[in-house]
């Protein structure tokens, strides 16, 4: 089996597993919606204030939702021993990790992207910024999954991994948050956004090339 075939097969397997447990796809979305609903309740429903905050709020909520789902990248495979088989297989582990991350993003990141404009509208974001919001999430959420995969790989063997995972991963999410929210802000005030989006794309390119390698070596340590 070539590497590419193995990649596709693993991707298909992960997607099939995810489709068998649809509730697990819906729950993070629900969480995303609820966090965003909490903000107007907490800070007040003043339209100007909400509009000003909308970019940051959507991005922070997306970040938290991504964090919540990270554990599922490797957890169930770790528990039933699939991960060990992947480690033993002849295929390069980093490519297998990448397949799992892509599957994870398709299941958790992509739906987030589709709901985001609706929620942004609830917060009164300017329609002009919607396209940028989608584009920044499209570039940014895969980075969240990729960086998160390193954190999960490091903590997968631990019993109470949740809190430690967020401690490890959240500081590393800061650049994505800054440029993601900044792009949307700039679009809302009618400024050019190409710079921010290019930087997000650069983050994505870097995470795509480096994160699977780091996650693979972390997995080897966790399972040794």
């Amino acid at each position, binding site marked *: 089996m070539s590497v590419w075939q193995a990649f596709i097969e693993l991707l298909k397997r992960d997607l099939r597993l995810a489709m068998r447990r649809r509730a697990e796809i819906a729950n993070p979305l629900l969480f995303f919606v609820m966090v965003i609903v909490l903000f107007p309740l907490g800070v007040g429903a003043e339209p100007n204030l909400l509009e000003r905050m909308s970019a940051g709020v959507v991005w922070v909520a997306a970040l938290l939702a991504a964090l919540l789902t990270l554990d599922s990248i490797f957890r169930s495979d770790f528990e039933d021993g699939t991960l060990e088989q992947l480690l033993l297989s002849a295929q390069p582990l980093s490519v297998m990790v990448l397949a799992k991350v892509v599957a994870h993003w398709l299941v958790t990141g992509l739906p987030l992207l589709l709901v985001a404009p609706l929620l942004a509208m609830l917060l009164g974001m300017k329609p002009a910024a919607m396209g940028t919001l989608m584009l920044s999430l499209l570039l940014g959420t895969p980075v969240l999954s990729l960086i998160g995969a390193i954190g999960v790989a490091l903590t997968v063997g631990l019993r109470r991994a949740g809190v430690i995972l967020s*401690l490890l991963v959240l*500081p*590393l999410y800061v650049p994505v948050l800054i440029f993601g929210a*900044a792009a949307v802000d700039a679009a809302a005030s009618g400024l050019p956004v190409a710079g921010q989006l290019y930087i997000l794309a650069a983050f994505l390119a870097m995470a795509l090339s480096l994160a699977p390698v780091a996650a693979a070596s*972390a997995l080897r*340590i966790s399972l040794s």
Partner: protein
Amino acid sequence: MNSFMKWFHKWGSPPWFYRVSGKMLPWLTGLFVITLVYGLYAGLVLAPADYQQGDSFRIIYVHVPAAWMGMFIYMVMAAAALVHLVWRMKMADVVLISSAPIGAAFAFIALVTGSLWGKPMWGTWWTWDARLTSELLLLFIYLGIIALHSAVEDRQSAGRATAVLTLVGVVNIPIIHYSVVWWNTLHQGTTVMRLDGPAMAPEMLWPLLSMAIAFKLYYVIVMMLSARGEILARETKSRWVRELVGGE
């Protein structure tokens, strides 16, 4: 094997490290006391008050060296992580994990002293200044490293997992720093006063350099002490430790 590699590998041996560090510690402590006493006396008493900030500028003699150490220790840790992962050197692991709490402490000191200085100077304890924010994030990364190390039960994999995380961090720290700088210039103009004033007078600069050396020596001393303890704990069963403590 050339002499450098020989020297390098010697440091990887716990008994050798234990012996040599034991001999070095008194000298390092002496130097530390000298540089600290000179730095403090010259900085707090001899140096003239700043013409703009008065006496409150004197906090730089603690704040600036601590902030430098926050970054410096992370670099040491990253180097140790690389050595640990590539050459599987036990001592690198010990150095890495002994350094992390010290680095976190320095980052914390830098934040606290910065905030103490900020109150009279900027009129607020905290401002989302780029340097403050990235120092805070650096502190979080240190705490994450410490948390991961204490969470993994198996010592060997704890060391290697921590090393991987440290290296991931070292790639990210510059990105985080420049993102924060960029974010800061975007969200708020520089409303705070900067230390861009006239170049520092020598009688202010020398104590600062002396304090910086003192802080570095302090780090080496504390790291060595903590590493010695860690070595003894890890090698309890080996012969040289038993001979050392005079057991059977």
